[in-house]
């Protein structure tokens, strides 16, 4: 695959590390059912066949974490953005 890094341009996926579903959010540990929430966050995934937004780390390039929307059936990539909005809040 070629991942369109918003900083470096399209690069082979061998430059990246993958961390799966980008839609899960780390829960607030203060909430009542934090244990259940963390269980779901750490372990449960939709694992869809089709559109998927996922985390890729460009360790072989700009060392940015990216959110990539990719079709898991066709591997077609929609968008790739910086996970932290380019470090510019």
């Amino acid at each position, binding site marked *: 695959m070629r991942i369109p890094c918003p*900083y*470096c*341009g399209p*690069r*082979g996926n*061998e*430059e990246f590390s993958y961390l799966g579903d980008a839609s899960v959010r780390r829960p607030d540990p203060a909430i009542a059912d934090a244990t259940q929430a963390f269980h779901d966050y750490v372990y449960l995934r939709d694992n869809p066949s089709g559109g998927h937004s996922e985390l890729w780390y460009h*360790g*072989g*390039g*700009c*060392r*940015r974490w990216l959110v990539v929307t990719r079709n898991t059936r066709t591997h077609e990539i929609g968008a790739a953005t*910086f996970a932290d909005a*380019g*470090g*510019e*809040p």
Partner: protein
Amino acid sequence: MPDAVLQARSPLHGLARSGHHGRAGPAGLTIVERTDIAFASVIARRGQRDALASAVRASFGLALPDGPRRVGKDGVAFAGIGPGQWIASGENAGDLAASLRERIGAFAAVADQSDSRLVLHLSGARVRDALVKGVPIDLHPRAFKTGDVASTLVAHVGVQIDMLDDAPVFQLTAPRSMAGSFWSWLTASAAEFGYDVATK
């Protein structure tokens, strides 16, 4: 401390022999190891990117690039390696990191990286033909121009490539600890064209 001043060693110490190597005849490329360039990483503070840019303009007369490009003047250069991140370099710049901290430290985290990398300047008619044996990015003049910068993986080694001029001259920097393996790949790739090694 009683001893004389410490002797510095280049990453290629004992590896690179000056002279002609590979195929006999005119050299297809020339490889120069540079040990006279200081490097420092510059990371903009949250929300301080613009302040940093103006500080850089004020101190060095340089417009900090937004993308993977480098700007330079009077031997000092800034190369974009990521959003809000640059590698500054200076030829014979002494303690570059210290002077950067002094001038732009209020807006950026600065770390000396002068010793962290093997620095090579590659030139010659066949330099691109040798580099394609490991460089995955497109180095064609239409695609990679003077002032362009790329961080990528070459032969399993993380490498930063700066195009310094159209001659062409490319600057490749690789992690110091991997200098030997990187050199093994580079020389194997260049041998077909014949190459000269010089040190500066």
